């Protein structure tokens, strides 16, 4: 089932908020080889930021745990991003994906999944209570003229 990637990278870091900017920048750097437009690059960074922040804020609310981010370049100029935590898990994924739904209090707006959906082409959320959450996103980048390889 898993499509073959022509290149991939995996990052693993503790769930500290200072790593949010790092994860965005690292994924953007990796995606640069796909020759994305500036808009595409910003969309990718935003989606990474939402998923990584969720892992940090909701996955591990009271502890520091590991966050995994994987980026893969798949056939058809598709970027696949996976953000995984082994934290608290989501009791009802369909409900969690609704706009404005949040368990995060006044510092959250409940728009993270909505933004990921709108900035990427595909969003899959797998979660098990007490075991963690895996978010997979795909985005097809516009074909661009390339001067050979």
């Amino acid at each position, binding site marked *: 089932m898993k499509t073959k990637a022509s290149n991939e990278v995996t990052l693993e870091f503790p769930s500290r*908020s200072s790593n949010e900017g790092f994860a965005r920048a690292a994924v953007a750097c990796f995606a640069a080889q796909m020759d994305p437009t500036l*808009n595409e690059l*910003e969309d990718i960074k*935003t989606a990474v930021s939402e998923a990584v922040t969720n892992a940090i804020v909701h996955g591990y609310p009271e502890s520091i745990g590991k966050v995994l981010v994987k980026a893969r370049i798949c056939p058809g100029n598709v970027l696949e991003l996976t953000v995984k935590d082994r934290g608290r898990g989501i009791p009802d994924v369909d409900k969690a994906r609704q706009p404005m739904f949040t368990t995060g209090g*006044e*510092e959250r*707006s409940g728009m*993270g999944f909505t*933004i990921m959906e709108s*900035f990427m082409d595909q969003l899959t959320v797998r979660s098990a209570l007490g075991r963690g959450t895996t978010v997979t996103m795909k985005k097809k980048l516009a074909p661009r003229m390339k001067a050979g390889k």
Partner: protein
Amino acid sequence: MEIQAKSADRNLMLTFIGDLDHHGARNALRELEQAVDAALPKNLVLDMSGVTFMDSSGIALILRAQQRMQLLDGNVCVCNVPAQARRVLDAAAIGRLVTIK
């Protein structure tokens, strides 16, 4: 993330500088509330010209500012929004709730 406050005649302008993400915004809500409570403005302008990146953390901040200003019977305006932050606001349809210029 840094917030600069300027106020005159019950107009308060807050200029945001830096990344408005969860990490950058962790003290921003408190700073915003303190600035509003000190100035008790009629008009609050959130100047986004210095925002280098924004995600949903910025949306929460804007919505809290709006609620705070509603209590004071005042207005909020979000101004000078860079392109990336603008797309985030649009994806969340925040323009229906807050004035964006």
